[in-house]
């Protein structure tokens, strides 16, 4: 038995008050979560509950107020060098072309320019951007930029993939295409994935396990569901199976109240 890829133990994150007089804000409290080596785990939860916060902690970008993170059995301090992180917001370098963005990580590792260009070209093809390598980012659509970001991370072959709503901006067809593509890449070379999404159907169709978070503040997981659907899956077809619908109903039961709570909190704020 190899060590789990990620172990979050009793993680709490409290942010200092934004202005004088306001209270410090505890986004997540006592979150414990284990991701096995090669496991695909989705995290769903109402907006503002702290999903991105947990991902930042796992990436080593944010030091939790309490709790520890273990990566393959080693305590994490500083940046998580084994993880590739696809951010929720645009994170590409706008002064670089698409291919230069994909090459960036290899360049930082001192890989020969010719070789990294070849590999980047190959990856651009894999995400469906053959021939668009020399475009600057503002010349690409939002969905294309997401795919550049995906290639930028996958080219480094990280053992852990942290993905924060990677396909949120895409139309349904492209989205399902990308989901299948990601699943194919993932099953070819099983990485551990933490996949954050608002879309419960996306979560179920892709994952081995779905974790449901409660509404903030002091959010924590309130349900974990194993998804025992057969693989390989087609994300569009699997949604029509009775097993899928049963799981969907069960998870939605847990989520509904939290989503409502989340909305009410936002309206009050």
């Amino acid at each position, binding site marked *: 038995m190899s060590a789990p890829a990620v172990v979050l133990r009793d993680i709490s994150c409290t942010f200092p008050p934004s202005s004088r007089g306001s209270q410090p804000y505890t986004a997540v409290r006592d979150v414990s979560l284990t991701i096995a080596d090669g496991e695909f785990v989705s995290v769903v939860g109402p907006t503002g509950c702290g999903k991105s916060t947990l991902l930042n902690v796992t990436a080593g970008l944010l030091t939790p107020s309490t709790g520890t993170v273990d990566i393959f059995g080693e305590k994490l301090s500083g940046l998580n060098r084994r993880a590739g*992180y696809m951010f929720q917001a645009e*994170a590409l370098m706008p002064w*670089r072309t698409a291919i230069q963005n994909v090459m*960036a990580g290899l360049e930082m590792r001192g890989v020969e320019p010719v070789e990294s260009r070849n590999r980047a070209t190959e990856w651009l093809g894999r995400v469906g951007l053959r021939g668009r390598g020399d475009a600057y980012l503002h010349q690409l659509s939002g969905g294309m930029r997401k795919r550049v970001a995906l290639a930028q991370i996958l080219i480094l072959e990280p053992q852990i993939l942290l993905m924060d709503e990677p396909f949120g901006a895409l139309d349904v067809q492209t989205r399902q295409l990308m989901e299948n593509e990601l699943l194919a890449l993932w099953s070819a070379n099983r990485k551990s994935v933490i996949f954050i999404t608002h879309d419960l159907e996306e979560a179920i169709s892709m994952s081995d396990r779905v974790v449901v978070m409660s509404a903030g503040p002091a959010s924590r997981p309130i349900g974990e569901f194993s998804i025992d659907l057969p693989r390989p899956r087609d994300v569009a077809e699997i949604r029509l199976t009775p097993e899928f619908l049963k799981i969907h109903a069960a998870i939605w039961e847990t989520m509904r109240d939290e989503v409502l709570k989340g909305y009410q909190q936002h309206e009050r704020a």
Partner: protein
Amino acid sequence: MSARDTLPPLWRLNVYRLLLFVASMLSWHVLTQTKILPPFFFGEPLRVFGQIWKWFSSGSIYPHLAITLLETMLAFFGGTLLGLIAGLWLGLKPTASALLSPYLKALNSMPRLILAPIFAVWFGLGLWSKVALGISIVFFLVFFNVYHGVREVNPVVLANARMLGASKRQLLRMVYVPSAMTWVFASLHNAVGMAFVGAVIGEYLGSVKGIGYLILEAEGIFDINAVLGGVITLTMFAYGLDMIVTWAERRLLRWQPN
């Protein structure tokens, strides 16, 4: 539809520009010939351009022009380079910048031209006192812009580059510098003019060479045409340098929309 679509084509625009120039020169000529504007104070265009022509055809202006351009270039590149280094460095060091910021702001709000006599004492009446004056103006212009540029770096882009494995130096080269470039170029257009100001004011205040000296000399004998000739010559070269900056900006900021 943008405003650009409604503009006349470039060739027509250039014709209009030429016409505008000819018209203003013509009215200058007519107004001074008819003595509505006294030529003693306002000069006469034909004589002004005659003076410029004489300077360039006889070659008597070249040593002056050479020295002024050299001072300007040294001030421009020296000030830009120093401003770039200091801006990057201080932008990345919150403690140092917090410590120094009131002093930097005070130095920046000081009218730098009053330093000219001090530089003259320190560096003599030759080239370097003018260069120092120019640098003292250009430096702050570039420095504050780079400093802002560094602080305004998109934190997500920065975090992403760190996650991709960038070292400190790579972050500087791949993220901070390109991100600050937009701000740098915004300041360089002003810096060109300011570098000339430093050189020419320095020459006014004491020198034996340079366009500033030439203008001062002409002023001493009330030769307004030569004064204006010097001013126009300077303007043309400043404009040329600005076009070089624009060209570099287009090349280096090609990644930006528009």
